[in-house]
């Protein structure tokens, strides 16, 4: 059997997913630390089961312009990972990696965009590897793709993909802290419902 909708998750399952999230995000934070040369942490990754409109609002609003990097997961887990960087986070990364900053996304050159995709790729891979090792499932992330646009439209990508199954979406992720200051960057995992059931089964808390 298993779950049919994300909103059927019980508190034990939510806790366990939060634990997975915290291991995944801490791996991602460690790789970000070595890139930036500063200590980066994700204090409390959260498991959120939200309706579509709430999810967009919680993540910073419909029209906020962000850089989104998406990777599709396949293998034993199907889903998507989305990394969202606001301009401040982009500048922090560019400053550390290339010694420059931009005032606007339109100033980003191709090399700088690829550098940002690479950062997204590193975060996503670190998370996915941790998840894969922990649950002993095979997950293959696709080549990441970038978009710079209204955040609301990017967050609806996983919603539209899995929206047929539920009016809610499960988001697992958090916000990075560097030297106790928040970096406006989020890392999110959105699995489809079948994969979520499989994940719970591997963790021994499926139904």
């Amino acid at each position, binding site marked *: 059997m298993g779950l049919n909708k994300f909103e059927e998750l019980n508190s034990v399952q939510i806790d366990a997913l939060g634990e997975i999230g915290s291991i995944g995000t801490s791996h991602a934070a460690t790789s970000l630390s070595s890139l930036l040369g500063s200590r980066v942490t994700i204090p409390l990754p959260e498991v959120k089961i939200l309706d579509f409109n709430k999810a*967009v609002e919680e993540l910073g609003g*419909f029209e906020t312009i962000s850089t989104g990097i998406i990777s*599709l997961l396949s293998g034993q887990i199907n889903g998507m990972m989305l990394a969202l960087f606001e301009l401040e986070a982009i500048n922090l990364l560019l400053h550390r990696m290339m010694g420059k900053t931009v005032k606007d996304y339109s100033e980003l050159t191709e090399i700088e965009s690829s550098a940002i995709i690479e950062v997204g790729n590193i975060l996503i891979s670190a998370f996915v590897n941790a998840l894969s090792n922990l649950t002993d499932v095979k997950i293959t992330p696709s080549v990441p793709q970038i978009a710079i*646009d*209204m955040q609301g439209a*990017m967050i*609806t990508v996983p919603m539209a993909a899995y929206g047929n199954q539920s009016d809610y979406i499960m988001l697992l992720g958090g916000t990075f802290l560097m030297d106790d200051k928040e970096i406006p960057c989020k890392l999110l995992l959105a699995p489809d419902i079948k994969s979520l059931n499989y994940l719970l089964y591997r963790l021994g808390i499926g139904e």
Partner: protein
Amino acid sequence: MMERQNVGISDMKLARTKGTLVTYALGSCVGICLWDPLLKIGALVHIMLPINMETNRTSQFKYADSGIRLTINKMELMGAKRARIVAKIAGGAKMFNVPGNSSLGNIGQRNIESVHQVLRLEGICLIKEDVGGSAARTLFFDVATGEGTVKIYGNVERKL
């Protein structure tokens, strides 16, 4: 005083005579403006998926087919006449250029096609559209004039 109503995802708002209906950040979703020019009854639906195949059908406005049909019914209850209703649509973009994944990549396109088909089946005339591409759109719909405005990041506003 301009009255403005926000239309969320899988949502619909109606207005009569005056007011602006707005829906933010349409990606692969499609916003459908329906308007009876005589009575100035206008509606804006924000659909996310092409066809309603859900068993319980809890959120009709999530889908192009059930969303458009329900909206037309509600407009008719307010006195609008189907033969007069015209439509303008915006959205259906492809946000990420994801390779080799047809089902995900094409959601926007499938939404556009489904909206076209449902409008045709319902006998509603589609008078203008701003669809496809890879950019998100915010859509404003002025119920008094039937005019739409599309806002795209880094671009000038476009009339719809």
